[in-house]
Structure formats: C-alpha cells, structure tokens
C-alpha cells in the first residue's frame, strides 16, 4: 500500500516566484519566509516521497467561469505551467502519475466526491511555487504529482468541512493503493490576506496562529467556520485555508508537527509553512 508520509503546507504568493527568479532568497524582505524551508528540505530528505498529491486553487489559468469545477483532479502524464498574464516567469513542467490519479478518481467518486476529471490541466503558481520551494533548483522535479484543484474563485466555495472530508477520502484512497509508493500531501495558499475592496491589506495574526495550532491536533475545530466567517476572520483570500484542511484530512495516522514558520508580510499576505508528519500505525501497514 501507499505510505502517507505527511503533509507540507505553504503559502503561494506570486511575489515568491519573482524572488526565486531574481535570487532574492536572502533579501531581508523575503528571507524570513524562505528561512522556513531548510527544515522542510531536511524532513523531505527523510520522508523520501515518490509522489505529491497537491491540493491547490487555480487563479484563472486553467479554469474560467464558463466551466468552474468545485473539485477537479488531474489525470495527465504531464502538467505544464503557462503565461498567467501578469508577468510571473513560467515554471518547469511536472510529471504526473495517471495510474494513481485514476485510482483516486475511482475511489473518490465511489466515496461520493464527484470529481471533475482532467486529462489536460495547466497548473498555476499555486502549484508551481510550493513545488519550487520544496524542491528548489529548477531541474527535473524528483516527485510525480497528482494535482487537486479546489474552487476558490466564485462563491459558494466548498466549505472547510467539505474540504477536510475530501482530504479524508483521499487519505482512505491512498491507504487502499496497492503500489508501494511514498506520498506527501501538499496544501497551498493562505494564510490571512485580502486583495480586493476597501478592506485590502487585511491580515489577522491571532487567527492565523490559532489555525496553525488547531490544524495539528484539532482540525475539526476549524471546520466549524463557515466561509463568510472565514472571510471575516482571514480576509477574502484567506479562505485558501481550505487547501490546508484538505491536506490535513488526508493524514490517516497519528499526526505530529515537525515544523512551522509564520511571517508577515510577503506582499499582501501572512506567509506560512508547516510540516505535519503522519505516523502510520503498524496494524494499518500489516
């Protein structure tokens, strides 16, 4: 069976892409965020994942309002980034894992999560930047990916509760996968920020820190926030917390925090990263 090694969550602020392209990782403005990643790299070196299942939200690269799925899953042999319109450099392509994608699709739909299935799917900065942060250097990425896009553009958005349960269904499906592969689950986005309206620039440090604590041991507590409540507490785009909840949901074993980093601001955003390790019980692996 597949081994779920843990989850890594990270912000995906476009300015991070600019900083990577310009080599500004040590710059005083960006360093407090990039400094959160050496511990992530150390953990990945031990966890040795073969595949990353990535919960993220498309910002209008692959999906438009003409056909906007609530949950979409990639089932492609390769995923490419492309021009996003506002100048972020186009990133490397990623290898897919179609066999695992179709296994997840079969299991998720059987589990009553009616996914939109995508044999072609462009992936935007919300996927490419966390991948570049986790596996820097720009060469071929050492892991294959299965992207899962969540609607974060148009309300009604999937609730935190639903997002968490989607993650749980992915975790069950991974546990039922016959191949002997090691999996890391990613959740990208957040934390508090708001880009639009007179409330632009809104950040809520106390709320973010509460979320980073609760997501380790008491994620159900976070699922009780409605989307309007979450907009109020975390800003209009802070609702990306849904991807963190989905990633947390996929951890089916005993979960412990390995690492966390939190910094305000990168661009308009409270930028954070976490590593949650998933300890698989001996019985489950037998």
């Amino acid at each position, binding site marked *: 069976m597949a081994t779920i090694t843990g989850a890594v969550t990270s912000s995906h602020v476009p300015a991070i892409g600019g900083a990577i392209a310009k080599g500004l990782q040590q710059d005083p403005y960006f360093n407090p965020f990039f400094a959160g990643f050496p511990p992530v790299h150390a953990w990945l070196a031990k966890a040795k994942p073969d595949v990353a299942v990535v919960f993220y939200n498309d910002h*209008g690269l692959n999906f438009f309002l003409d056909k906007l799925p609530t949950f979409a899953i990639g089932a492609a042999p390769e995923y490419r980034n492309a021009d*996003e*319109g506002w100048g972020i450099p186009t990133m490397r392509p990623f290898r897919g894992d179609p066999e695992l994608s179709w296994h997840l699709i079969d299991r998720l739909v059987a589990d009553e999560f009616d996914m939109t299935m995508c044999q072609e799917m462009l992936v935007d900065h919300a996927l490419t930047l966390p991948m570049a942060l986790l596996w820097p250097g720009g060469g071929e990425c050492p892991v294959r990916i299965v992207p899962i896009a969540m609607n974060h*553009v148009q309300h009604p958005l999937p609730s935190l509760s639903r997002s968490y349960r989607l993650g749980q269904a992915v975790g069950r499906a991974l546990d039922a996968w016959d191949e002997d592969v090691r999996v890391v689950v990613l959740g990208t986005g957040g934390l508090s920020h708001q880009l639009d309206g007179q409330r*632009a620039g809104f*950040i809520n440090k106390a709320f973010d820190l509460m979320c980073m604590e609760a997501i380790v041991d008491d994620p159900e507590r976070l699922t009780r926030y409605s989307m309007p409540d979450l907009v109020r507490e975390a800003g209009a785009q802070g609702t990306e917390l849904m991807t963190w909840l989905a990633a947390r949901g996929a951890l089916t074993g005993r979960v412990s925090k390995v690492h966390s980093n939190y910094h305000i601001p990168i661009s308009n955003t*409270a930028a954070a990263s976490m590593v949650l390790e998933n300890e698989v019980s001996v019985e489950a692996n037998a």
Partner: protein
Amino acid sequence: MTHDTRRPDIPGTTLFDGAMARKGYALNKMCYSFNSAANREAFLRDEDAYCASYGLDEAQRSAVRNRNVLELIAAGGNIYYLAKLAGIFRLDVQDIGAQQTGMSKEAFKAMLVAAGR
C-alpha cells in the same frame, strides 16, 4: 447544519458570488484573455475595439478606462482576473491595494508590516 445563503455584510468586501459572476462575466472573460501575450498587445493597440469585442457594458468600459479597481469590482470584476488587467499596466497587488484603500503604496506596505507586530 444550516446554511445562510444571504450575502454576508463584511465591510469593504464584495463576495464574488453567482450574482457578481453573472454581472461581471464579459469583463472577467476579457481579463481571462490576457493570459495570452498577443491579446495583451491587442488591448494596448486598440483598447476601445478590444473592450467592444468582449461586449463590456458602459460601467465596465468606464471602470477599465479609469483604471479604477473599486469600480471594476462593483462592475462584477473578480480580483484574480482583474490582476491580469492590472498586470498590463504593470500594477501589482500592492499598487492595487493602495489604490483601493486610498493610501500611498509606501503607507499600504507599512500597514502590512505593522500587522506583523
């Protein structure tokens, strides 16, 4: 669990819901087209003709002409698509934030830094 489907009242915030998505469809569709460099150039070559080809209504056309983000949002624009329009004018999300809050960019950035303390 009960679901309140009324639009919540959050100051300075317009939730981009079905009503806004219907209202802003033409504007957002035009902005989505700016993922292509050729389309960005076509817009810059003849803004009027480009807006007309997407069927923008008067409020949307005026908001684009004014480069005014709050007007663009009121006309149904979604911030993720509007960012592609703003990119044509080399405006980033902090320029946009400053414009919407009536601050200088420096003051807006200082406000964000202060939020971390």
